[in-house]
């Protein structure tokens, strides 16, 4: 079985896994990194979103064999030196979460949106966030939190 050294949240994790195993399964089942969630396994709901070399990625459909030396950031790696990312802080300030299961993916998606577009309009938020499902219906608070984070940058 192939052997990988994965750079996740600034730490190297050595792991043996089949090349077609999803990065989500590798992290959750082999490395104990459980922040990214399984929601559908087909890249359709966005609960698993992480960043790979700074690009938003649906890791439930990302084969571990395709990752190479790329640097992976999960929800656990978003806060730096004990300081929450402004998007995380905005999520708390707006009391966004209900069950919270989709929120790691929502937050990771919103972080990329704001990096690419520091002051998104409503329709740009719609565009960027509509591939993520929240079954509790927290969308309105997600929108408010994105705007709050944009203001606080």
């Amino acid at each position, binding site marked *: 079985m192939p052997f990988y050294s994965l750079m996740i949240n600034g730490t190297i994790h050595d792991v043996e896994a089949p090349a077609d195993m999803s990065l989500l399964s590798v992290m959750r089942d082999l490395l104990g990194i459980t922040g990214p969630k399984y929601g559908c396994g087909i890249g359709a709901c966005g609960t698993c979103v992480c960043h790979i070399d700074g690009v938003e990625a649906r890791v439930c459909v990302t084969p571990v064999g395709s990752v190479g030396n790329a640097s992976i950031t999960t929800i656990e790696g978003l806060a730096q030196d004990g300081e929450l990312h402004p998007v995380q802080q905005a999520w708390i300030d707006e009391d966004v979460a209900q069950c919270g299961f989709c929120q790691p993916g929502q937050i990771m998606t919103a972080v990329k949106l704001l990096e690419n577009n520091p002051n998104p309009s409503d329709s740009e938020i719609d565009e960027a*966030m509509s591939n993520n499902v929240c079954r509790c219906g927290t969308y309105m608070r997600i929108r408010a939190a994105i705007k709050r984070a944009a203001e606080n940058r």
Partner: protein
Amino acid sequence: MSKDNSIAEAKQELSQSNNEKGAETHLRTPDPNNSQESSGSLEMSRRHFMQFMLTGSASLVVGGSWLSSEEAKAAFAIPELGEVFDIADVLTIVELPYAHNLVLEITADNRVQFELPRLDMGQGIATAMAQLVAEELSSDYELTDVVHSDRRADRPFSMTGNSSTIRTMWGPVRMVAAQARARLITAAAQRWDVDPGLLTTENSKVLGPNGMQATYGELTADAARVWHPLVPATPKSVYDYDLVGQPRVRKNALDIVTGKQEFTLDIDVPGALPAVVARAPQIGGSVISWDGSAARSMPGVVDVVEISSGVAVIAETFNQAKKARKTLEIQWSNGVAAGRSDEDFRAELNRALPRSRRTFWPFKSHTATFEYPYSAHATMEVMAAIADVRHGKAEIWYASQSPNYVAKEVAKAIGIAPFNVTMHIPYAGGGFGRRLFGEAAIEAAEISKAAGMPVKLMWSRIDDMKSGRFRPMAQCAVRSTWLGTTPVSFKNTIAADHTDFGHGIGDALTAAGANVFPHAFTQIGFQTMASMPYRFGDTDHSLIERDFGVPTGSWRSVFSGLTTTSNEIFIDEIARSLGYDEVFFRRRYLDNRTARQCLEKVAEMGNWGRSMPDGHAQGVAIHVEYRSACAYLVEIDTTGDEPRLSKVFCAVDVGLPINPLGLKAQMEGCLVDAWSLMFRAGNHIDDGQVREHAFTDFLWARMKHTPPEMDVYVFPAQPGGEPGGAGELGFPPAAAACVNAYARATGTAPRRFPIGEFV
């Protein structure tokens, strides 16, 4: 003493207590929409002491023992029977003997931990409970934790449903916290040798004269030895509340945004191996024969076992288990609905509805039949459970809304006694009624038993959609007869696939003294949920059930999501046909002060009747249930590719809001649920199989389908108010308001949902 007598006496006690409250008139309650301080005072004269128990001498643990019936009666406000009586009332009554049998611990490191015998699945009850505990105990809110209790076999009717948690727990939680506070004060008084009447409490400290103070943590060991507190353990008056009624961010918000919040499959149970199950493609099909030899030879596969619902594969990773599952060769029997599809069910439901009768002059009848599809719960966290069944005992991790029911089912499935089933209740990624049942827990237990090792079972999203439960398909036939502008009758007859209540509310009803045949429960449950806050003459709701074999269950708002939704759409149509403004019409015939107040509030917030461009319109609806009421006013824009709400206003009165921020979240979530079900998402049955797979074809609302603006107004606590239910309250009126706006904007009369599928 007979149950009836004890209830009658407790009611008397309640009315006395209400009279005491009623004597105060100069009080002010906090406005939950602002962060105002409350003031005023009100002494409650009830003094009831609870028994408590010691767990060593390290910390004070209040609760844990049974109240005498005398104490229980006195401490607990029994609702008025008859006039308003619903499932939460039933649960309150049957839990009465155990009501205060709760565990509240104060630890030496000065933390407070309350074990909640309910499930927080996102609705925010743990946060509201922390507010109640901290308020009553004068503990530091930041140091006050609420955790899920393991299954409590000694609380047989504990369940999380029917928006009942705050209503059923409010009294007991306050009593238990007040008991703890009284013992902490007593411990401090004895330590300092001062009059306990001089002591006060604040931020997890007891304060005395001359700057004396001690933290609860410093006092807890002594407090645990206090047998009779020297000060009354009387819960605070609601008028003295500082924290309750104030908006609070949910307690686990930080854990959620940092990925630390554990859900079932995040829990590290040593040795528990991943498992998946191959289930019949047709609903209710079963295994005839199977061959797992190819699967067994796949890498990482540890075992392949047959269980009652199919064939399970256990492997070192979920990846390996899922791959091996694909190689299983299984011959399945036909399912219970083989050969039947949606159109067959629709026709059968339609045949079950009463034939329409002619109405003779001068009477005029309005009629409409509304059709609703099956709808999955589709919790964001797929069904999952961990089980360790060895040596005749079972240890289960499953986020259950009804742990005692699930434990019984687990015990039955694996042939052990229920008392040998331990259940841990993890935090849940959504519920909406789905977790009243526990198929995943039962399967995991069967797999663990067959393989002789602990397992963690995951349903894939497709498993979850294909083998899940559904809100039943239903048709609501509404008919209202009028003589000019005088209503004569209003009848709503629902024909629906049977709603499965097998999770035990029926047992609770029986225990509450109702003589209920098991099959009659659905009828009684239906009647308790039927809400008709208007004077429309002779009103009647009736339910006709058929059983199509499709697995069903309560889905947020249950029957109200059909009855009130249909009624409120229909009422709009009657108003228009009689030439009335829809808000004026409701006000004219409303027979409920709280609902009227909510309606008037949203009409004001949303500037009802303002002129709007073509293709845009407002829509309004109300609902009364769970001793609460609410109204929605929405604005819709139907000029784009698909209709979209532009603004939403909601006004909600729950009598006594605990956490307005959490309450607003529920009203927002209900709006998104309502839009999803009325306009976008539904399930279909084709030849006995569920058609949908995932969120790709179960079209739940996304960000771009939600209103850019939504404003929720929370009415402040009412004098003498007690908290009503909230979690499901918003769905029916939100659903009807959205459809009403659409109907007004397009000049149509929608009859079949989701609208997006049929236009």
